[in-house]
């Protein structure tokens, strides 16, 4: 069923010319390339066509590929995701956008009961090769309906893949891989770092992507395999497992404090690069997990369990987690809520002193 015309395309163009772009441009580029390569790729969502997306991720694509390939939908998340499942089963490769992750819930039934389960219950005969793109995460004063990090609701569901890029380079390569993947992928884009790698020091100006090495994005097609973590920084003092915006926040705090951390950007939560995690924790003997999402049953709980199960005899200190509080995302007090430099710094001290 549903095979993409570029299934066996090369996995990279090592010597392609590159330019420095931000994350939105990288996502736009990936979508552009996939629309160009594969006539079954279709983009749909609220305000993605005519308007080019509220964050401009689909800007120009309707003009270039026409209204049958890139189109606006009514505000009907359940219908959008349900339609994508059916389109996928019939051989298309839809890339629906859910405008904010906070609006994905009306589509949960279609994602969990249909998209995630179609392959299993048809014994592999029907699949749902769709990629749901959605901006997620906080730090933009969005309050409870524009700031959530619901990734663990999806990692908990067998049959879905969950991908979260943290740089323009990764965003492009991972999005291409997600679209080519023959399973349903939830592709969460950390909107706080669309325009620059936010450091968590909210009172300092954000450095733009252009000056960051990971904003150098090759032109043309390349993909980054799902399930491979990225070592952001090698170090010996401890391992930090993180993803999305918190990659940059953690890196900034470690820089500030002079901590020789090994920072691992998971990039995909499911499938998870457990080998990379194990290798690093065995080397450092200490592990800190950082995510924005609420703590209880967050993805950090899974990571902590895995590290404890697999690396117990290498651990020199208990695994620590820095997460969002177990509350709705607040309207005021955003920086008291956000798991920023202060909380990460305290956790680093604690784990290194242990």
């Amino acid at each position, binding site marked *: 069923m549903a095979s993409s015309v570029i299934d066996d395309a090369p996995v990279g163009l090592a010597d392609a010319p590159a330019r420095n772009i931000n994350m939105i441009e990288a996502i736009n580029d990936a979508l552009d390339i996939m629309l160009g390569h594969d006539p079954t790729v279709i983009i749909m969502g609220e305000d993605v066509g005519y308007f080019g997306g509220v964050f401009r991720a689909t800007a120009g694509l309707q003009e270039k590929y026409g209204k049958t390939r890139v189109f606006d939908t009514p505000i009907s998340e359940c219908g959008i995701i349900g339609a994508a499942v059916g389109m996928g089963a019939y051989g298309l490769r839809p890339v629906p956008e859910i405008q904010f992750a906070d609006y994905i819930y009306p589509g949960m039934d279609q994602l969990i009961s249909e998209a995630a389960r179609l392959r299993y219950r048809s014994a592999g005969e029907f699949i749902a090769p769709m990629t749901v793109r959605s901006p997620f995460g906080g730090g933009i004063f969005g309050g409870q309906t524009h700031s959530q990090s619901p990734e663990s609701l999806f990692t908990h569901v067998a049959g879905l893949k969950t991908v979260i890029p943290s740089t323009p380079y990764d965003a492009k390569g991972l999005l291409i891989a997600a679209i080519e993947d023959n399973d349903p992928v939830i592709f969460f884009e950390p909107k706080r770092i669309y325009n620059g790698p936010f450091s968590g020091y909210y009172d300092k100006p954000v450095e733009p992507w252009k000056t960051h090495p990971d904003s150098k994005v090759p032109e043309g097609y390349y993909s980054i395999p799902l399930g491979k973590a990225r070592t952001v920084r090698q170090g010996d003092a401890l391992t930090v497992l993180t993803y999305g915006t918190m990659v940059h926040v953690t890196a900034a705090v470690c820089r500030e404090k002079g901590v020789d951390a090994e920072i691992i950007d998971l990039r995909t939560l499911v499938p998870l690069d457990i080998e990379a995690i194990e290798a690093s924790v065995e080397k450092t003997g200490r592990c800190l997990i950082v995510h924005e999402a609420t703590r209880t049953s967050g993805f950090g709980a899974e990571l902590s369990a895995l590290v404890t199960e697999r690396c117990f005899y290498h651990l020199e200190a208990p695994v620590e987690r820095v997460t969002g509080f177990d509350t709705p995302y607040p309207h005021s*007090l955003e920086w008291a809520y956000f798991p920023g430099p202060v909380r990460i710094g305290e956790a680093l001290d604690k784990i290194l002193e242990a």
Partner: protein
Amino acid sequence: MAKPASKGKASAPSAATPTADVSGNADFVLHSLQQTHAKAPRYQASDDELLKFYEQMLLIRRFEERAGQLYGLGLIGGFCHLYIGQEAVAIGLQSALDADKDSVITGYRDHGHMLAYGIDPKVIMAELTGREAGISKGKGGSMHMFSTEHKFYGGHGIVGAQVALGGGLALAHQYRNDGGLCLAYFGDGAANQGQVYETFNMASLWKLPIVFAIENNQYAMGTSTARSSAETEFYRRGTAFRIPGMDVNGMDVLEVRQAAEVAFKHVREGNGPVLMELNTYRYRGHSMSDPAKYRTREEVQDQREHNDPIERAKKELMDRGRSEDELKDIDKRIRAQVSEAADFSESSTEPAPAELYTDVLVESY
């Protein structure tokens, strides 16, 4: 002329003939309320009533203008949706409610609905700036405001979700047999959410006392109704559920009020839900950052110049003998009231960090 702006159809705005035209609706059988309304489309307001409507609409306008300024100054953050242009809808409908019995619920564009109750602008503005003194203690923000005192059930950021809640409020009115009805507002964009139709069916099946009020301001963010909706005559959308519809000029407070009289009476008599489409227009962007590429300046200007609900009421007041000076004094008083609210909202404190953990569950934890 029912539609204040072209719904993808050619129609020039005109104040002359209100919502009388039901021709071409032969396929729409449930228009008895529409016909009743067409016979006497405008509410016979006393001079005092009209003045009150005018003041209330003007308060919303000035409040929203100020909120826009505070946003520009960085005192309001995140998302903030102004009601400018739509004032006649909230005032026309809510003035017809029975304040002791009826409940109201709406979406995120909710400042006007709060003000229509006469709630102190200070606590509304302080909610926008996220301060402790705000009506939701700064925890809800612009989109999430409530008043149990007034049976105002919010203020909801998720598009369309409040409609189903409104069904539940109506069911509770019915169950308690308290004689109240629920007025559930939503937008033209929200009208495409599936749960709206689940609610229509239940409400009609169980004859719930609910008025569905679609504020059709022609756009959902950057999407015009014509680009998102198979049926842009929203008042017909209850047909399949046997819910009578009313197509109302939402730019004339007296027409809205009269339509409310007709609709509320029908619901109070135990006949089940009514669907009202209030045709209106938002002058400002969807939220505060809106490049407005989806419509022309001329379109907005045309509405402002020819169809403004406040100007219409003002002209009518002057025709009835109110002096320009008297109306100017009213404006001055309202501006002072709004300034006071703005000062209050700037000077009150942020919630204490411990507030992050209150009201998550009934117990503190």
